[in-house]
């Protein structure tokens, strides 16, 4: 008996308050959105094969680009790791039977689905041509599309974010097993805690902005209309006050997953536990004070820009702490190159590259040249796709035996991991170059001299698309044909591996009592325990 076999009816899934089943409901929904957003990306890349634009009109291209951004940001990247792996693993990692508010958790899924459907309706019925940023006055005076439906959809799904964040914070505070002190928490939980704080404090600002945007579109109230005294810069301030911290919502859970993977596959305790833990909090806090670096050329004062530039550089410090600590963890470790670890290695390289190019953009003088070019596109895709999506797949493979009770096929998984890394770099590295050469982003056509780089990029994207379909195929296959997973296939010391695979509905037969830290690997010859 386990949580999967505990009830076979549709009702037992749709009305479940089991965090593990809700995680699977989310996993299905998120996967659907990932492929929808991916399809829009495929259309974009295909169109850019030729300088004049292969098959999309300017209007259609703008709609595709907006759809890609909206779906990927709000319906995949922001929720991805917290609602799937977070939902599943948090209670298991802290030795609890469920989250603090199980019914709120189920409600968050329904809100997410409703929000997603409303937004999808808007994007299918007429589309939105503003880009995912909805900048005013473009979105308020010149846009032709179903902006209101999309904004309402995002607004509704925002409540789902808030509910998830609130649930995690309260759960981690209240439901830890006896003896599980804060410094004994797995580092994944520290990163999820930091993520939840951002979700709680940033999402409401977006909610208010979306309300104002909808009112503007419905009643033409003129809040952001510069012709009658409105201030369009205010829109950008409020938008980025949410959307920059949201970038850390997308990446922090990934950082947490990779920390777990690096430790598990080098069989060593994470080097500098406290630094890694607090660097998550530091990223969350500093992340709230850097939003102005999106507005260097938007017309804010030079002194404001200077401040935001300096603060943006500061984010590099906790990020670098994480990277260096992963490397120090690997040092003298017993490293296995299983698929999750391949994803983790891919993450470390791509995240570093994405982070370092972020420094170019944080520097005022360089940004004036690079802003609104493909350099920016490449930069954030290195973090979001190269980083976050790699971490997502790494974590999914690592916890797959626990979630499903089945092993995934290792060889196929390694092939997919390597293909993803290769395809990703081929897609996005050329974009650094054309961006540096001055190709602007968000256009359906471009000057002919950039064609070779765009062809390379599209070739990479087709490899990437294939590589993303692979896990979908073999993971589905493993659900039925995969070998039965033991309770602890990787020999990891974490609490979630002490219970059976798949876990019981109530997670643990008896609530465990914790007496040691999360990465307590047996010491090896000539190696001190903490590296």
């Amino acid at each position, binding site marked *: 008996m386990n949580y999967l076999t505990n009830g076979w009816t549709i009702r037992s899934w749709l009305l479940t308050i089991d965090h593990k089943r809700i995680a699977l409901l989310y996993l299905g929904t998120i996967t659907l959105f990932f492929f929808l957003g991916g399809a829009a990306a495929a259309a974009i890349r295909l169109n850019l094969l030729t300088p004049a634009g292969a098959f999309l009109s300017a209007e259609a291209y703008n709609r595709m680009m907006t759809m890609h951004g909206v779906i990927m940001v709000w319906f995949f990247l922001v929720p991805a790791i917290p609602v799937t792996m977070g939902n599943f693993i948090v209670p298991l990692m802290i*030795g*609890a*039977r*469920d989250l*603090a*508010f199980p019914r*709120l958790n189920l409600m968050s899924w329904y809100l997410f689905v409703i929000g997603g459907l409303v937004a999808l309706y808007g994007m299918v019925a007429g589309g939105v041509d503003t880009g995912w940023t909805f900048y005013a006055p473009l979105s308020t005076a010149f846009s032709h599309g179903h902006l209101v439906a999309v904004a309402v959809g995002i607004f509704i799904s925002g409540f789902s974010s*808030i509910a998830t964040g*609130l649930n995690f*914070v*309260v759960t981690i*505070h*209240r*439901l*830890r*097993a*006896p003896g599980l002190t804060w410094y004994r928490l797995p580092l994944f939980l520290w990163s999820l805690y930091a993520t939840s704080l951002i979700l*709680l*404090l*940033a*999402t*409401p*600002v977006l*909610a*208010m*902005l979306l*309300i*104002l945007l909808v*009112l503007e579109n419905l*009643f*033409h*109230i*003129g*809040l952001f209309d510069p012709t*009658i*005294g*409105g*201030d369009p810069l*205010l829109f950008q301030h*409020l938008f980025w*006050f949410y959307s920059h911290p949201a970038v850390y919502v997308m990446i922090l859970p990934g950082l947490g997953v990779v920390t777990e993977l690096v430790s598990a596959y080098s069989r060593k305790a994470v080097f500098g536990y406290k630094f890694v833990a607090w660097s998550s909090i530091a990223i969350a806090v500093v992340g709230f004070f850097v939003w102005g670096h999106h507005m260097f050329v938007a017309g804010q004062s030079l002194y404001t820009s200077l401040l935001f530039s300096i603060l943006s550089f500061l984010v590099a410090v906790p990020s670098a702490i994480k990277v260096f600590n992963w490397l120090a963890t690997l040092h003298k470790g017993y490293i296995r190159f299983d698929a999750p670890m391949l994803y983790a290695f891919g993450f470390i390289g791509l995240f570093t590259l994405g982070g370092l190019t972020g420094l170019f953009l944080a520097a005022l003088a360089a940004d004036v040249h690079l802003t609104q070019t493909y350099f920016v596109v490449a930069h954030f895709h290195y973090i979001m796709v190269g980083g976050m999506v790699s971490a997502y797949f790494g974590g999914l493979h690592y916890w797959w035996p626990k979630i499903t009770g089945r092993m995934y096929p290792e060889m196929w998984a390694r092939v997919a991991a390597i293909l993803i890394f290769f395809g990703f770099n081929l897609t996005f590295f050329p974009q650094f170059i054309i961006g540096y050469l001055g190709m602007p982003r968000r256009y359906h056509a471009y000057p002919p001299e950039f064609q070779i780089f765009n062809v390379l990029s599209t070739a990479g994207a087709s490899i990437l698309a294939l590589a993303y379909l692979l896990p979908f195929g073999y993971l589905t296959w493993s659900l039925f044909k995969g070998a039965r997973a033991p309770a602890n296939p990787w020999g990891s010391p974490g609490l979630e591996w002490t219970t059976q695979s798949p876990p019981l509905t109530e997670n643990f037969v008896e*609530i465990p009592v914790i007496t040691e830290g999360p990465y307590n690997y047996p010491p090896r010859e000539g190696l001190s325990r903490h590296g």
Partner: protein
Amino acid sequence: MAEQSLEKGYEADTSLIGMWLFLCTEVLFFGALFFAYFAYQHLYPLAMAEGVRRTDLTFGTINTVLLLTSSLSISLGVVQPRWRTRGFVGAGALGAAFLVVKGFEYAKDFQEGLFPGPGFIAVSRETGPEHIFFIFYFTATAIHALHMLIGLGLITYALKGKGSPVVVALYWSFVDIVWICLYPLLYLVGRGAG
């Protein structure tokens, strides 16, 4: 600790923490609106003051009295279990009265052409964009009224003996505090000048 969560008191504490966290998100939610308000206050002080002079001080003050009394009533219902039903019923009734008064005020506002948009009637063109004040007036009071409606629902729920009365009272007090911030900004600041 999961075993402890079965205890009634522990569960009530957990939902109280949940409500506090939710109210933190609410602070940021209204905070965004206040931030925008102050930005425009800084840009167009004269036009914003003109807006304040056109709101109805009588309605606003009556509502402030109603809501503060309502909060007193719900607080008494929490501190003294004997007064629970009376306190909560009183708070709900005063809250409902607030919404009725607000409805009359809205009707008058619409008649005077205060709703921003194409039909807005400005007093003078010299002070600046006067409609902006009323964007805040209507957005803030409408969202506040929506919170009141949710609060009335929660009070009814608590009166049926469900949920934690402290949590409901906490939410109600927050809605009250939002009004305490809105009242001076929408009815008082700048009214005397000019």
